[in-house]
């Protein structure tokens, strides 16, 4: 069992008008095996939370802590966080020309495990995971995310999650831009990882749609840079029916 613990997290970004606070005291605790949905309107700071945990240089942590199994994540570089067991599935995966998916996956796996994977098992694992995500084998020889469609990029993110086996995965709007078929394939991928490992998942989304396929244990409503309400899956149903108005108007 491991725990990802976020305590009173405050984060700002630099703007032309000076620093602007985006996160205003976030508290969240995620244990292994749990799935937490973070739901909130646009601009509420959901993605900032994802990128801050992963260590994107654009965001400045002004106070608070993030620990994984008691280890201070904020003291670590981006790659150290990943090697500590954190994974971020990005909303906008980045193109890397000249680096094939196959080379990228092997390099990442080697870095995470601290040793190269056994060739025989690795080839089988990659092929199996790609089959499951309905990805054509020729994907392996394409350059990372280059010319991928929106759906292909998201499948590629979940492929990495399956192969890198993180302790905690933050999925940042993985459902955005997916049609129903792609959403099912991607959700099944996430569910497979949940079944086959002890991964804790932080599922960030604007819409309740993906929650039909990935059942959360907890739902947090995120408004104005912090958690405004918390509950079980039933909270998602209420959001589906009534939207965010109740919390956004309350915060005015």
């Amino acid at each position, binding site marked *: 069992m491991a725990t990802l613990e976020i305590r009173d997290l405050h984060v700002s970004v630099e703007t032309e008008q000076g620093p602007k606070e985006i996160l205003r005291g976030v508290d969240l605790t995620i244990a292994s095996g749990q799935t937490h949905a973070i739901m909130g309107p646009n601009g509420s700071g959901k993605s900032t939370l994802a990128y801050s945990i992963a260590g994107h240089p654009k965001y400045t942590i002004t106070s608070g802590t993030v620990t994984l199994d008691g280890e201070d994540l904020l003291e670590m570089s981006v*790659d150290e966080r990943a090697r500590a067991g954190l994974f971020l599935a990005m909303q906008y995966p980045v193109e890397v020309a000249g680096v094939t998916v196959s080379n990228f996956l092997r390099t990442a796996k080697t870095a995470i495990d601290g040793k190269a994977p056994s060739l025989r098992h690795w080839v089988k694992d990659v092929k199996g995971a790609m089959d499951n995500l309905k990805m054509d084998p020729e994907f392996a020889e394409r350059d990372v995310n280059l010319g991928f469609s929106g759906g292909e990029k998201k499948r590629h993110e979940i492929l*990495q999650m399956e192969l890198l086996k993180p302790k905690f995965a933050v999925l940042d709007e993985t459902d955005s831009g997916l049609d129903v078929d792609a959403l099912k394939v991607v959700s099944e991928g996430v569910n497979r990882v949940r079944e086959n490992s002890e991964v804790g998942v932080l599922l960030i989304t604007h819409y309740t749609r993906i929650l039909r396929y990935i059942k959360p244990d907890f739902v947090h409503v995120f408004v104005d840079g912090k958690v405004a309400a918390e509950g079980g899956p039933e909270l998602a149903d209420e959001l589906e029916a009534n939207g965010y108005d109740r919390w956004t108007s309350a915060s005015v």
Partner: protein
Amino acid sequence: MTETYTIEGGPVELHRSSFDVADFPLPTGREEDWRFTPLDRLRGLLEDQPSGAELSWTTDLPEGVTLTSVGAEDALLRTVPKVFDRVGALALQNSTGAVVVKVAANAELDRPVVLKLHGSGADVVWGHIVLDVGANSRAQIVIEHSGTTRYAGVLSVLVADGAKLTLVGVQGWDRDAVHAQHVNVRLGKDATIASTQVTLGGDLVRFVENVEYTGTGGDAEMAGLYIADAGQHQEHRLFVDHSAPKCRSNVVYKGALQGEGAHTVWVGDVMIRATAEGTDTYEMNRNLVLTDGTRADSVPNLEIETGEILGAGHASTTGRFDDEQLFYLQARGIPEEEARRLVVRGFFAELIHRIGIPDLQERLLTAIEAELGGEPEAAIGAVNQ
């Protein structure tokens, strides 16, 4: 890659070509084709001074290939393309003849032709090499430069009808070498060239590469990559002259710059004349700036005299290392240094892989890794193995 620095050029300056040194007065540095070049660092290559010095040659000639020296009066030398600047004219005049590498018509070579040219002195060396690639032949020709010298060379590349040539040039010079080179390509009907120039070493390297077509169906892939370290000047100027219909050209040059005073210049001129209907052309230059204190000049120029073309375009980007790529790779556990190497290697790998000579590709990739790892001497060692 972020586009932080782009120069869009204007119309193509009319390119004057000649065999006669008198047609090219001593440049002042204000001329369009000299304005980026530090003339003093050419160290005598603009002066009309005879020299008997030569580079030493090591060659590997497969069956179907002959190598001969011809005198200045040889008929072949009156048929080669003219040159475009004073250094080229001086090289033609003072080399008093040429080395002719001839690939027999219809030959299909079983291995690459390799010419290794090594410099080991401070004297000025003038040189002229003619690659005479016979009709319907298939050949790969590699010209590797190493050592130190002050060398002005003209490479006349005559690709006859239906022939297919892969040409690779490697500038693996010692740090103090000076090299000014013309590469003049003439393509016959349905002739193809895939050229890659790799410039790593030297103090000053300046390439002037020109392509002309004598019939329809000519196809020129002109690629290059360069890595400039502190204080190095690397310049590549291309001119593709589309005068024949239904020909194709694609120019791709990629460079990386690191260290104080590293300076690269890329000028890509494409002229589509009124007679060149059905032309398809594209040119691209991308520069990756790895440290402060460098300068990348990139000037694509395109002039079109007919509307009846298939395509014509150009692109130029000069950018910093992309932080978002770095974040993405690091977020997958890959340490920063390795992530950088992966991205830069990827940046160049595309050009290396299409050379089609595996052991040379391996050497070049090793050299590039060493260059980017901050070990230019090891890089030169690796490339000249």
